């Protein structure tokens, strides 16, 4: 029940292949988040699952049934759109009731279902109002109400929170998490927001130009990125990427000429092998002079209160990001020494594959 399976799914717009053969299984009751850069095909994939877009190759299975012949309304899916897409000329009540009426439900049943859903989302007061007379957050709640009122097995959310202000986003995020607990339905959630993805997801699917780059729990994709793309996409501020070469003895040779020992022992491959070292910003720290491996000039310091994000330009012209304490003394234009902590560091080959 409620599991969604994609088998080699493809989509073409004209001659452009937008979805390039995606295999994915979303288990029943799971909350999976799709992330990826703009235009990578997240919405398209969601719309294909919903049946709003034809599948040009491969198969989509919902609850084990191949759905290509099924109309959107018959698939047991509901979708929440980024712009809410509430029917502007109908009251919230009618917005919720519209789908139930289409399914031929008796009037009294429609009424009780709508009121039950409204109570769940605390929108009973809004029922007589039209969308125009609601705030963004209220519209969002009604849009979610319209999705859950039909008791679908699969929920599809296409960036539902991106039009809300920060505080409301946090509130709606927890509300969605709560709904997921209560309804125990399968949910697929598209977002641009790192925090949303990390906090909501059972598993994250990282997409890039129509392909799956990695599927994993939030911890996995953060700490064990499968490739350079995932490493640089997940995490905010983004991972620092430094070009290095393998030294004679399997050590790391930085651009500055400094040598470091790889925590696991040696790095593989022949001496002189060019690699990219990935380090999260919290693995970089300010150190006293002559202790650091890299030096650079601060050219932006973001003081966030409990922490400070420093953007540093190295002598070799690389941009680095450091996450340090809120009371870090560095100021704009300072020359700083940076120490690298290689625990949890990643190494990528020139093709972007993770090697170590």
């Amino acid at each position, binding site marked *: 029940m409620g599991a969604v399976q994609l088998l080699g799914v493809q989509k073409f717009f004209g001659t452009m292949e937008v979805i390039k053969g995606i295999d994915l299984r979303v288990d029943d009751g799971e909350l999976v988040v799709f992330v990826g850069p703009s235009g990578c095909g997240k919405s398209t994939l969601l719309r294909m699952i919903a049946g*709003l877009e034809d599948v040009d190759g491969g198969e989509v299975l919902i609850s084990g049934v191949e759905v290509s012949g099924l109309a959107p309304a018959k698939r047991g899916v509901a979708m929440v759109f980024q712009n809410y897409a509430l029917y502007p000329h109908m009251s919230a009540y009618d917005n919720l009731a519209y789908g139930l009426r289409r399914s031929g439900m008796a009037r009294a049943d429609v009424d009780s279902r709508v009121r039950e859903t409204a109570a769940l989302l605390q929108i009973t007061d809004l029922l007589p109002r039209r969308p125009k007379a609601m705030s963004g957050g209220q519209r969002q709640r009604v849009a979610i109400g319209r999705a859950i009122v039909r008791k679908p097995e699969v929920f599809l959310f296409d960036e539902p929170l991106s039009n809300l202000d920060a505080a409301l986003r946090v509130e709606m995020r927890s509300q969605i998490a709560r709904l997921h607990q209560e309804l125990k339905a399968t949910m697929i959630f598209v977002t641009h927001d790192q925090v949303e993805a990390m906090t909501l997801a059972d598993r994250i699917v990282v997409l890039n130009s129509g392909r799956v780059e990695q599927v994993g729990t939030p911890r996995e994709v953060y700490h064990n990125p499968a490739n350079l793309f995932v490493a640089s996409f997940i995490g905010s501020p983004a991972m620092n990427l430094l070009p290095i070469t393998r030294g004679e003895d399997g050590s790391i040779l930085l651009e500055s000429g400094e040598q470091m020992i790889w925590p696991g022992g040696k790095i593989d491959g022949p001496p002189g092998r060019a690699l990219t070292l990935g380090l999260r910003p919290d693995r970089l720290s300010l150190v006293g002079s002559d202790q650091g491996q890299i030096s650079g000039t601060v050219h932006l310091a973001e003081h966030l209160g409990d922490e400070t994000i420093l953007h540093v330009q190295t002598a070799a012209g690389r941009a680095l990001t450091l996450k340090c304490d809120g009371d870090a003394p560095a100021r704009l234009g300072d020359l700083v020494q940076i120490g690298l902590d290689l625990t949890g560091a990643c190494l990528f080959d020139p093709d972007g594959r993770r090697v170590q």
Partner: protein
Amino acid sequence: MKKTSRIAPARVAQTLVYHAVMLAISAVFLLPFYWMAISAFKNNAEIFANPVLWFPDPIRLENLTALLTRDDFPFLRQFANSVFYALSVACAVCFSCSLAAYSFGCLRWRGRNLVFGLTVCALLLPGIVTFLPVYLGWTKLGLNGTYWPLIAPFFFGDAFFIFMLRQFFLGVPRELMDAARLDGASEFRIWWQIVLPQVRTPLIIVGLFAIVYTWNEFFGPLIYLQDRDEFPLSLGLFTFQAARAREWSISMTGALLTALPMVVLFLVTQRLFRQGLASSTLK
């Protein structure tokens, strides 16, 4: 010192000149209408009186009763014909053109752009080119002399109105239709219950255009209708004038009563015209 108006005298003069010029120009355009209106309340002698009578004296309302009771000019009958004709065409246009525009603007299908291109090409084709074969066709069907040839074609769309409405249908968010699809509405129902309410104002305006166009339509009725009792006013008025060239006052009364409904319609709906087409479809 006494505080004077803050508008500079030069500005006042400029405004005065501007308004004087505009009034003079409007007067040129309004004069024929005014002449028609006052002639409707004069007798023939007064219409041609020298010096010109700028205001009818006495106001002869008997023209009105004469017009309505004459048996060689079934005015009320023809008025009803015109109303029927105009409303039928308006309904047909709103129905067919909004369906076509929905398809062109909101649905995706193979060859859509080609078919739309051909439809727009039909705009460039003068009606007179296809007139003869169409006329022969209707005659073959035995429907010459009825309103069928005048109304039925509009149930199959009109290139200009399709073109105009499509722009507004394009403005309806795709997600609205997607949401309705997920709610289980058929395409026809989506058109009727979801999309049409979003383009209500443009649709009403298209209907009004159709009414005004049909009300003044002359050529079609002239070709297809033979019986005076079947004529719409545009044609009826013309044949009356042709037959009774010297009864100017009755003609003018008829003309006034023919023009009046359109003037009233415009005054009642002008707010729609000013706002509707300018503002976006979703408001």
